[in-house]
C-alpha cells in the first residue's frame, strides 16, 4: 500500500515522459557491470606499481582502454542515458591520468596514487548504482 501511495504521488508530480522513461529504462547489464568492476579492481591494486613510471604509464593506458570499451558498449543501448554519462566520466578521468604520463616529464608517486584514488572512488559509485538497475 505504501508503494502504491508513493507511486500515485509520483505520478501526480512528474511528467508522463519521465514516468515512461523510468518504466522502460535499460535493464541491468552484466557487461557494463563487469567493465566497471575491472576499473574498480585495477585502480585499487595498481597503486602498488606507482613507484615504477613505465609500469604506471602502461597501467593508466589500460584503464583508459577499459573505460573507452565501457563507453562504446553502453552508447547504443536505448534508454541508457545515465549509464552513458557515467561511462563518459570514466573515460575523462582515466584520460587525465594517461595524458600526464604522455608529457614525458617525471610523474610523482603521490600523483599516481591520488589519481588512481579518484578513478577508484568514481568506479565504485558508478558500479553500485549500475548494479541496482532493474533485472
Amino acid at each position, binding site marked *: 500500500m505504501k508503494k502504491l501511495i508513493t507511486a500515485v504521488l509520483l505520478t501526480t508530480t512528474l511528467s508522463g515522459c519521465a514516468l515512461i522513461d523510468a518504466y522502460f529504462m535499460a535493464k541491468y547489464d552484466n557487461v557494463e557491470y563487469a567493465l566497471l568492476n575491472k576499473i574498480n579492481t585495477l585502480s585499487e591494486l595498481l597503486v602498488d606499481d606507482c613507484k615504477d613510471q613505465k609500469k604506471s604509464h602502461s597501467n593508466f593506458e589500460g584503464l583508459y582502454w577499459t573505460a573507452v570499451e565501457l563507453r562504446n558498449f553502453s552508447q547504443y543501448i536505448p534508454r541508457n542515458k545515465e549509464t552513458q554519462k557515467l561511462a563518459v566520466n570514466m573515460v575523462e578521468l582515466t584520460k587525465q591520468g594517461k595524458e600526464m604520463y604522455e608529457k614525458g616529464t617525471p610523474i610523482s608517486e603521490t600523483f599516481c596514487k591520488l589519481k588512481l584514488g579518484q578513478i577508484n572512488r568514481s568506479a565504485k559509485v558508478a558500479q553500485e548504482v549500475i548494479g541496482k538497475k*532493474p533485472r
Partner: protein
Amino acid sequence: MSNLAQIQESFEAYKNAFEQGQISANEYKSLLEGLEVEKSVTINAEELQFKEHLHTAISAAISAASMLG
C-alpha cells in the same frame, strides 16, 4: 561519508600535497580537474538512482492495480 564530503576532503588533501611539494603544478591541476569529474559522477549516479526508485514504484503500482482489477 557522502560523496560530496569526500570530494571536499580530497580537495584539502591535494592542496596540502601541492603546498608541501609532493606534486607539481601540472599534477595539481589534473587532480582538480578530476574532482570536477568526480562531482559529475555523483550527480549522474544520483539521477540513475532516482530513476531506479521510480521504476520500482511504478512496477509496484502496476502489480497492485493488476491485483485490484
